[in-house]
């Protein structure tokens, strides 16, 4: 009956569909996705099918967001440990039976489709940690933070081994944010910083040659202009040659003469920056800043410890994506495989991001319901 009534009045249907969606968040994310599609249209001049494929990805991602916005944080909390364990099991499965693409073992076959289980951890890990801290809320001790560190370290190590440095960095960062917001003391935090610095030594040993090369070339890209430095040199030229106003949409020469590698995915920002210049970059930064501001506001007003931690961590994950990607394209961070959030081509990342947006919306919607 409700369905019939809803169908009878399209306006009511629209209102029902939009129920629980956060206007500012949705607006910002869609604006970014629109920028992504426009840039992709330019970057994929030789493969126009990519644009329609990305539109499909966007539809799926929006559906995921819509569903997530309808799941109360309470339910989400119950799902946290199983989601985390499932993610962990899948990562182990990848290590054992995964497909190798471009020399890295990241993909798992599920029926006809392939996906990267590491993607799941981007949300499952902060959920798990937030769940853990929520249970111990009243009395957080140092050893709780140590246990949380272990929960964080296992999946990160598995992902780094694949090897997928970009995702490992993201997952580690989002886990760290939960620990930070849970209130770890400043002194342990400082100690953690020192330990992390010391940890880079064995970590350096764990890295693959090509990963080391990427980090070394960051210091001096001209050292290896044909190999690892090529990406950075060419993307920096693209950004720099864009100037204040950019070369105009569809007129980026670096992109169209195929100087920018991976110009649909991780380096799409180089294409955007070349065509829209400093003004475009300013707009993009403003959109991301708006997204972060809205997310942190939702976190500050969230009802429970769990939702506060989760909202803040997801928000800062968006920031980390954006910062690392733009940093690497403009040559101040090493080249790790991190997409520009909501903009880069690719279905998995887009789905994860919009799922995160959906969770934020749900937290915002339930901010008063359980408040005591």
């Amino acid at each position, binding site marked *: 009956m409700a369905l019939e009534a809803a169908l009878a009045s399209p306006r009511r249907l629209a209102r029902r569909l939009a129920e629980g969606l956060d206007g500012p968040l949705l607006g910002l994310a869609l604006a970014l996705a629109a920028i992504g599609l426009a840039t992709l249209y330019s970057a994929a001049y030789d493969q126009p099918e990519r644009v329609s494929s990305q539109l499909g990805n966007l539809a799926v991602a929006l559906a995921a967001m819509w569903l997530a916005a309808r799941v109360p944080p309470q339910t989400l909390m119950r799902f946290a440990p199983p989601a985390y364990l499932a993610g962990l099991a899948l990562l182990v499965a990848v290590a054992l039976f995964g497909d190798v693409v471009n020399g890295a073992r990241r993909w798992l076959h599920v029926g006809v489709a392939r996906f990267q289980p590491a993607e799941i951890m981007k949300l499952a890990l902060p959920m798990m940690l937030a769940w853990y801290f929520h249970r111990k809320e009243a009395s957080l001790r140092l050893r709780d933070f140590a246990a949380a560190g272990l929960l964080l370290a296992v999946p990160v190590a598995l992902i780094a081994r694949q090897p997928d440095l970009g995702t490992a960095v993201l997952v580690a960062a989002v886990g760290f944010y939960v620990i930070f917001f849970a209130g770890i003391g400043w002194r342990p935090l400082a100690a953690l910083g020192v330990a992390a610095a010391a940890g880079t030594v064995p970590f350096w040993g764990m890295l693959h040659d090509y990963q080391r090369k990427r980090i070394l070339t960051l210091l001096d890209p001209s050292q290896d202009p044909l190999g690892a430095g090529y990406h950075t040199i060419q993307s920096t030229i693209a950004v720099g*040659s864009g100037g204040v106003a950019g070369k105009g949409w569809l007129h980026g020469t670096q992109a169209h003469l195929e100087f920018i590698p991976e110009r649909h995915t991780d380096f799409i920002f180089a294409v955007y920056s070349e065509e829209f210049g*400093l003004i475009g970059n300013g707009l993009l930064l403003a959109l991301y800043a708006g997204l972060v501001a809205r997310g*942190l506001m939702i*976190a500050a007003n969230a009802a429970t410890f769990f939702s506060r931690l989760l909202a803040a961590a997801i928000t800062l994950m968006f*920031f980390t994506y954006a910062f690392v990607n733009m940093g690497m394209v403009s040559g*101040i961070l090493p080249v790790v495989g991190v997409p520009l959030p909501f903009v880069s081509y690719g279905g998995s990342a887009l789905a994860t991001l919009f799922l995160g947006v959906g969770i934020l919306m749900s937290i915002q919607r339930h901010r008063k319901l359980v408040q005591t």
Partner: protein
Amino acid sequence: MSLAELKDHQRELHRFRLRVGIAGAAVLAAFALLFARFFYLQVLQHDTYASKAEENRISIVPISPNRGLILDRNGVVLARNYSAYTLEIFPRRVRDLEATIGELAELVEIQPKDRARFRKLLAEARNAESLPIRTRLSDEEVARFAAHRYRFPGVEIKARLFRQYPRGEAASHVVGYIGRINARDQERLAELGVEANYRGTDFIGKAGLEASYQQELHGTTGFEQVEIDAAGRGIRTLARTPAQAGNNLTLTLDIRLQEVAEQAFGERRGALVALEPASGAVLAFVSRPGYDPNLFVDGIDPQSWESLNGSADRPLNNRAVAGLYPPGSTFKPFMAMAALELGKRTPKSAIQDPGYFEFGGRRFRDSKPGGHGHVDLYGSIVKSSDTFYYMLANDLGIDAIAGFMRQFGFGAKSGIDLEGEARGVLPSPAWKRERFRRPEQQKWYAGETISIGIGQGYNAYTPMQLALAVATLAANGEMYRPRLVAHVDDVRTGERRALEPALARRLALRPENLEFVRRAMAGVNREGTGARAFAGAPYSSGGKTGTAQVIGLKQGEKYDEKRLAESLRDHSLFIAFAPAEHPRIALAVVVENSGFGARAAAPVARVVLDYFLLGKLPEAAAKGAEEQG
């Protein structure tokens, strides 16, 4: 909630909000840093980067490596490269392809065949930079095009290396051929994670050793840093990392022996595999008819493809490893071996052969009407008595036969270094259960075991499997994995990597039994079914003839060769080793639709053994050589 708890809660919320504030400030700082970087690049350094982008573009141009050569055991070249000019069209830069090709045809000769090939390449390789419309231009044609080059943007002359197979059809199924990289190859390269090394490579091994040793032959791609102008034309080379040529392959084959063997087949279809028993080295590897691999090199034109692929003789089919044939009576020495090893017969066991064996009310006929009379184990091989092996198969039972034959490699891939090997069929009740769907088909009938004994029934093996089984018999039960490549040479370092003989397994067989079966096989060539073919041979050899039925004969029906269509006639088979005492060569021959093994296949084996052991050319070829010399 108590007051204290509430206070606690408030304090905690306060702390959280403080940290949110800190995080927000950090985010702003990070974005400010990014903006500063953008400002530095896009405002302060804009002129530098703008000129870098607009005037001095550096393009990375891959240099494809020279493909490794393929040589026979004596260093005779079987596959090499030569440089030639091609006329290439960049489809993305040409607006009207048909018109352009039409105008080009006024300058250089472009046949319908070339147009058809170009269209095919265009359809297959969607993302290719440039595609050839004409290959192997003459100097005159190059000059003529160069004079009119300005009229054709998007058309260029390129110097390319082409693959050439100087021996043409000889050993075509061994060497194989290369072809353009297609979407499926691309996918496979991506899976192997070697895509980067194939930037600039257009060709890849498609068949034979060209395919199975692709990674060895390919080499390492080099790169050239070229300065290009705004239109994408190269101005000058800045830096160069040379390509490293692929490795050369030296085969175990002797191309002269190979050619002698191929000529021995004449126009007939069939296959031959000759192995060195003590190492598994392939000495000759024939599949007839062959094809000219040179046809594939520039992308085969549809007409030639149709005539090769559509031919009833299936020249592209590698019969030596993918052709399946019932072994016929060449199976008998292995059956005799099974009988001795499993204790079902002794060298003294004998039967009275009436010309048939009756089982379950059905008569299994001997190929000799009236039978061979008194036949012992030795005689059963020399005279090829069917009745003897009908009875033996019945006594052994199918499970014992299948279990014994499996050791000799029947029904399993030999593991030779070629792709596309067939497994064949070693019949057993388990195989039948798996092979068939309906329950009544899945059941094994005792009557089916009888014809297995003479190599008929479901038996189906490749000539390679037969040759390997004979080689194993000749090498006292040691089975070496067959291989075509003797060593791989790194041209750059001069390093030679020999591929050592690989012992696949050692069969536990009693020496006196091996000795007995080999003696009986020597008897075949001295006084039995192979005696005519080997009359006057100055060396000793062992052999066994075989005739494989293509169609099943109904009971009581008499086989009349003349009445049957050629394609339904029996296959002629022969297995052999020589010299009998210390075999240096073991082989299997199949001549399709040529009737009795003694008549067609045994003479082919004789020619090969004569040349291998004596260096003697067959009479016809010798006469030809004399006339030439």
